[in-house]
C-alpha cells in the first residue's frame, strides 16, 4: 500500500511552501516508519434497512439524528465498515514525539493518509459489489450522528476481537488511527 504524499502534506497544513531536500527525506522516512508499524485490518457487515430508513434489520440498532437519516435517504441497505492501523502506530508516534517531534507529526499525518486510503479501498470494493449505488462514508460524530453509537459499531462488527479496537469512556477509539462509518446502498431502479 502506498501513502499519498499530497494527502500527508495537506494534513500537515502544507500550502505550497518551499520543501527542502531535508523535508522530503523526513517525509520519506515518516512514510516508511508508518508503513512498517501499520497493520491495516478492516471489517464490514451488510444490513438491510427497515422502512424507517435508519434501523438495521435483525440487529436491534437504530441510528439516531437527522444527518444520518438524510444520508441514507433512498437506501434500502447499509454497510457498517471499520478499519484500523493497529496499536503499533500509536506507540511509534508517541516514541517519535519524544525523540524527534517534527518527524512525529509527519508520521502521524502519514498515518492519517494511510487509514483514509485503506478505507477508500474498502469503499471502492463495496461500491463495485453494489454496482456503484453507494453513498459516501458517514461516521459517528459528524453533524448530529452521536458518537455514543460507536458502541453499536463495536458490537455489530465485533471490533474488539477482530480489529483489536478499544473504546474509551468518552467513546474515543484506540488505536487512534481507527475509522468507522456507514455506507448506504441505494435502492435499485425499478
Amino acid at each position, binding site marked *: 500500500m502506498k501513502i499519498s504524499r499530497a494527502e500527508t*502534506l495537506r494534513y*500537515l*497544513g*502544507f*500550502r505550497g*511552501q*518551499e520543501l*527542502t531536500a*531535508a*523535508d522530503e527525506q*523526513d517525509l520519506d522516512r515518516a512514510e516508511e516508519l508508518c508503513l512498517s508499524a501499520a497493520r491495516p485490518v478492516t471489517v464490514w457487515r451488510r444490513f438491510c434497512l427497515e422502512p424507517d430508513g435508519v434501523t*438495521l434489520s*435483525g*440487529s*436491534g*440498532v437504530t441510528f439516531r439524528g437527522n444527518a444520518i437519516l438524510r444520508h441514507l435517504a433512498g437506501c434500502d441497505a447499509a454497510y457498517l465498515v471499520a478499519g484500523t492501523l*493497529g*496499536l*503499533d502506530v*500509536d*506507540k511509534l*508516534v*508517541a*516514541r517519535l*514525539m*519524544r*525523540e*524527534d*517531534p*517534527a*518527524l*512525529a*507529526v*509527519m508520521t*502521524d499525518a502519514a498515518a492519517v493518509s494511510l487509514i483514509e486510503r485503506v478505507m477508500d479501498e474498502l469503499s471502492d470494493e463495496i461500491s463495485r459489489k453494489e454496482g456503484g449505488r453507494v453513498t459516501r462514508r458517514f461516521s459517528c*460524530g459528524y453533524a448530529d450522528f452521536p*458518537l455514543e453509537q460507536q*458502541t*453499536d459499531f*463495536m*458490537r*455489530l462488527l465485533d471490533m*474488539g*476481537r477482530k480489529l*483489536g479496537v*478499544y*473504546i*474509551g*469512556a*468518552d*467513546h*474515543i477509539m*484506540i*488505536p*487512534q488511527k481507527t475509522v468507522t462509518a456507514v455506507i448506504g446502498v441505494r435502492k435499485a431502479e425499478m
Partner: protein
Amino acid sequence: MKKDFLKYAKQRFVLLDGGFGTELQKQGLPAGVPPEALNLDAPDKVLAVHRAYLESGADVILSNTFGANRRKHPASGEAASLTAAGVRLAREAAGGKAFVALDIGPTGALTEPLGDLSFEEAYDVFREQVLAGRDADVILIETMSDLTELKAAALAARENSSLPVMCSMTFDESGRTFTGCSVECFGLTASAYADFLGINCSLGPDKILPLMKRLLAVSRVPVFVKANAGLPDSEMNYSVGAEGFAAMYSDYADIGVSVMGGCCGTTPAHIAAVKGMLSAKKPVERIIPYVSAVCSATKAVFIDGVKVVGERINPTGKKAMKEALLAGDLDYIAARTVEQVEAGADILDVNCGVPGIDEGEMLPRMVRFLSSLTDAPLQIDCGKADAVERALRAYTGKAIVNSVNAEDGSLDSLLPVVKKYGAAVVALTVSERGVPRTVEERLELARKIILAAKAHGIPEQDVFVDCLTLTAGAEQEQAMRTLSALTAIKREFEVKTTLGVSNVSFGLPARKIVNTSFLTMAMYAGLDLPILNPNIPENMQAVDAFNVLSGRDVGCARYAEKYAGYVEAAPAVKPTSSGAEELSSQSSEGELAHCIRKGLDRAAEITRELLKTHDGLEVIDDYLIPALNAVGEDYASGKIFLPQLISSAETAKKCFDAVRATLPAGSAEKGVIVLATVKGDVHDIGKNIVKTVLENYGYRIIDLGKNVPCEEVVRACRENGVKLCGLSALMTTTVDNMRLTVEALKEACPDCKVMVGGAVLTADYAEKIGADRYCRDAAESARYAGEVFANRGLERERKK
C-alpha cells in the same frame, strides 16, 4: 454444588462448555443486543443454552456474564445485577451436576498510557463483577488482550474472593495479543495470579497448538484451552466441525493440557465430541519447567546466559539524576532510560531513594513512566515493603525486587510481596551481623534467604543471589572471595547470581580497567546478571566477548554483527580553533536566525560562539527570541508549515541549552507553564507540539500528559504557583471536561491564565467556557505566553 473445583480438577480432565453468543444468535438474539442483557430480559433462552451444554457433558457451565461489566453497562448497579442473575441461571441449569464459573471478559477499553482506563478503575470494574458473582465455584477471566487489564481482573478476583481463578488471553498466530503481549509474557506474569492459565478465542485448535506449547514451557500452573471452531467465513459460519475439533484436541491432552472447552462457533456437539475423545485418555502428569526469566508486558528476558542490568536510574552519587527526581524532570529520566537500552541493557534497575522523596509514591510513578518508554523489564531497587508493593502493583510484567537481605525483618516483610506479585528477588548476603568476610558466611546467608524464599513459595529460579562486591582498594582479598562465593552458590543451588560491578574499583585510578577485568572474572565465576553502566563501551564489550568465549554467542554471530565496522578509538585530539573561526561573528545574528529557521544543527555552535562575547541573557533576548519570533511569523503567514516550525523550535532548544549551561540554574527560565490534555482524551499530539515549541522559547513546561483529571491540573497549577496553563481537547465529547477543568482552575487559582486549543474548539467556545485565550496553533500559544510573561521572567531575573 459448591464443591472444591481445584481438588476436582487435580486428577482428571475437566470439560468447560462452548460458544455462548453464537448459540444465542441461533435462537434469534439480534447482533446488536448484548447477550448478558438476556439474563434479566429472557432468562429462558439463557437456561436453554446452559442445559444443552450440560447435556453434552460439560463439567463446568460458564455464566452468561462475559460483558456484564460497568464499562459496558454504566447504569448504576446494572453490571452487578446482570452478573448476579447470570450466575444464578448457570447454577439453576447446572443443578448440582456441574460447576459454575463466573465468566469475566474484557471491559472493551484499553488501559493507560495508550488508553483511558486506569489500573484502579479496571480493578474496581472487575471487583464489582467478582462480588456480584460470588456464588460461582470458580472465576474464569478470558479473551484478554491487554496484560494490565488481565492483571487488574485477576487481582480483583484474588483479593475479593477465595474462589479459584482461571485466566486466559487471546493471541494471533504469531503468539502476540493486539497490545503486543507475547505468550511468554502472559505465562511468566500471570502464573502469579491464577490457578490455571489458558488460551482462548481468535484461532482454531490447530493454530493454537504451537502457542499452547509455548505456554506450557513457561507456565507454573496448569493450562487450559478454549479454541474457536476454526475461522469464520464472511457469513460467520465456522469451519471446524465437532469431530474434527475433538480430534485436534486429542493432541492437547497428550502434551499435558487437562482443562478444555470451546469458544466462538463451538456448539454442544463439539463439547460432546471432546467428551468422547477424552473418555479414552488419561491426563498426562505435567512437570513444571525450570524457567528463570523476567518480563515486561511485551518482552521476556530469559536468564539463560549473562544479561545486563542497567544501573543509571539511580540518584546515589549522581547529582543530575537526584535533581531530576526532585524536580520531577521526566525528560531527563527518559533520556537515561532510552540510552541504556540502546547501549544494550536487558533489564533496568530503578531507584528513587532521595531524601525528601516518598518512594511509595514515586516508585509506582516511575515504574509506569519507564514502562511507557521501554519494553525492558524493570528491577525495583528498594527495600521498603510498602513502596515495593505499590511499585509491583503498578508494574505489568514480572519484575525483580532489589533486594531482600538475610535479616528476618527484611525476609518477613518483603518475601510475601514478592510472592504475591510473582516477582523475582535479589538476595543480598548481608545480615544484622554486617557484611560477611568469608565464602562460607556468604554461602550461609544465601542459604538462609533461599530457604526462606522457598518457604514463601518462591522457587530458586526466581532468586538472584548478590554476594556483594567490596572495594579492592580497601580489602583486596575480598574480590576473590566474592568470586569464589559466586561459584560455590551456583554449585549448591539452582539460583541465578547478580553483582553490582563498579564498586570494586572505588578509590582507584582508571577504574574502568579494574571494573572490566573484574566483570570478566565474575562472569567466568558464574555471574548471570551484572549490574553496570551499559553506556561505558568497555562494559558491554566484556559481556560480548564473554558470550563469544563461553560459546553462548553461537558461531560468534552477534559479535560479528555488532563489531563488523568496529574501529579502535583514536586518541583524543585537541580541537583546533580554526573550525570555529570559520563562523563569521560579524553576521552571527543573521546566520543564527537562518540556521534556526532551517533547523540546522550549526545553530548551537553559533550560539556557543556568541556566548564568548555576549552575556547569556543577551543571546536569548537579542538573538534567539527574535529568530523564533520570525519563525512564528513565517508560520502564521504560511511561509513555512508545521514540521518546519517544529524543527526550528527543536534547533532553538539546542541553542537555549547552550545558553543555560552558562547561567545559574533556572535563570534563563522565562516562566513555568502547565500543559495537559483533558480527562477522557488520549489524543495529545497537538499538546505535544505546543510543548515542544514553548520549551524552545525558554519556558519550563510541566507536562501532565493526556487523560488528566481536573483535580490534577488544579493541583499542579497551585503547587507550582503557575501563571499560565494550557489545555487541549480533540473531541466534542471531551470539551466538556475542558469546561469543568477551566472552572475548577479559575476558582482555585484566579491568577492563572488559561489558554485552550484543539481541533473542535473555537474562539467563541473558548470564551464561553471561561478560558482566557483560544490558541489555534503552537505559534499562537507562544505569542500568548509572551504576553502573559511580559515584564516577568527575564526582566525580573535581570534585576537580581
